[in-house]
């Protein structure tokens, strides 16, 4: 299963590279984030840190080709391919290009003389690595150098001023601001993107549609601590709550909830099990009561109005 997925993603990467060499740095960034960041993001084992010039000055003098070869074969404490043996030579080269591009001043020395080390290694490496792609890969890339050097300090007119920009979503634990990146074990924690990859997407929260992931069988969380064959008893009962004004009525579905939860999680501590017996309002939901005990904390956030307010009124009431 895992290896199928992997080869599919390798395949798509191959296609991607063949068609769009400029996307190289981009894919290098992605590989870096999933396979190399543990060491190169933190400096563990004295790995040269991403973007830290002092760690790289001596190394860049070797040239990109040698760096790539060392990354492929391993050097001192650096295991071959950083331990991700499934990566092709070209993929490693893409990461090296990305790493060099992150240096202030841009590691130009290393980029001046691109040699096709990757060509040799990649060919031997896997059937997936087509020579044609490698030729593309070995061409000098203007893209990464055009992007840098990174401006120092925060620019004033960022596109998103108060909202989190897309580049800041689903960050790995080492960069998420609540984990201690200097702790070696933090690097062992899973990158959310890796786990979320196969799941249906949504617009908020974890950016994953948990209901769809479950109903499509993409995830199968246990219902019992030990016995993974036990299944929940699902109650299919919708409760419609009428809402004054223009907002559509709220349909509360027992079905999706009893997939995840036990009756005792809500009854009677949060809701009296009687239609209309509870006085629910948006204000209390926003403050983390009633539906807001879970929504806006772990289950999808309150910003997803339409998921709850799902029943359009036949005639919009006007006041």
């Amino acid at each position, binding site marked *: 299963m895992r290896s199928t997925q992997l080869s599919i993603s390798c395949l798509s990467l191959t296609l991607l590279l063949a068609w769009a060499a400029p996307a190289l740095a981009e894919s290098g960034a992605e590989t870096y984030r999933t396979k190399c960041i543990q060491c190169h993001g933190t400096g563990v084992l004295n790995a040269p840190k991403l973007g830290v010039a002092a760690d790289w000055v001596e190394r860049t003098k070797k040239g990109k080709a040698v760096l790539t070869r060392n990354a492929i074969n391993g050097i001192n404490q650096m295991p071959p391919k950083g331990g991700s043996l499934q990566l092709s030579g070209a993929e490693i080269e893409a990461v090296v290009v990305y790493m060099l591009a992150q240096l202030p001043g841009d590691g130009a020395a290393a980029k001046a003389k691109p040699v096709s080390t990757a060509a040799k290694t990649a060919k031997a490496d896997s059937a997936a690595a087509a020579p044609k792609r490698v030729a593309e890969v070995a061409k000098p890339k203007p893209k990464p150098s055009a992007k840098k050097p990174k401006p120092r300090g925060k620019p004033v007119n960022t596109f998103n001023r108060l*909202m989190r920009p897309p580049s800041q979503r689903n960050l790995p634990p080492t960069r998420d*601001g609540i984990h201690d990146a200097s702790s070696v074990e933090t690097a062992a924690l899973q990158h*959310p993107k890796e786990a979320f990859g196969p799941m249906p997407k949504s617009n908020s929260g974890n950016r994953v549609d948990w209901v769809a992931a479950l109903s499509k069988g993409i995830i199968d969380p246990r219902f019992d601590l030990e016995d993974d064959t036990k299944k929940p008893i699902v109650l299919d009962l919708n409760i419609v709550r009428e809402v004054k004004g223009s907002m559509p009525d709220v349909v509360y579905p027992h079905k999706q909830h009893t*997939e*995840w*939860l036990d009756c*005792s999680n809500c009854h009677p501590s949060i809701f009296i099990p009687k239609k209309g017996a509870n006085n629910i309002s948006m*204000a209390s939901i926003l*403050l983390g009561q009633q539906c807001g005990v879970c929504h806006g904390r772990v289950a999808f956030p309150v910003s997803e109005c339409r998921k709850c307010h799902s029943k359009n009124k036949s005639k919009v009431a006007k006041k």
Partner: protein
Amino acid sequence: MYESLPTITATRTDATVRTANRRGSAWLLAMLLIPAIFFSAANAEYGDVVINEVSEEAGMRPVVFPHWFHRIRFRCKVCHADLGFKFEAGGNDITMLKIIDGEYCGACHNGNIAWSVENCNLCHSGKPGTKTQVHESTLQKLVSPVKR
């Protein structure tokens, strides 16, 4: 390098509650609908719980519990009904003694269902100084001038 973390102070929450009671939902809704929402140094996963009731006092980093990771493996019911975790960050009086005796995290992190407690820093992985919180919760996300 990092700015201080976006925690809502107690006074802020109280003020919000009081205002909400006085003026009702319209005010809160207006607040939510301001298209400007939350931007800070901490960008962790929605639903990550930091538990730091006793850890730092005892010289360990705060604990980070990732909901997203665990809900791929277990339904909420297992922890919140069978194992008795209350829906409240920091509200369960978890201690290492209870954990090694098989309660709370220890019901699974026992070398049987999941890796065992000797891996201290996989749980105690929080940035020093981070307070108990549910990361990205509604109140934490609402734009407020005190935060910046």
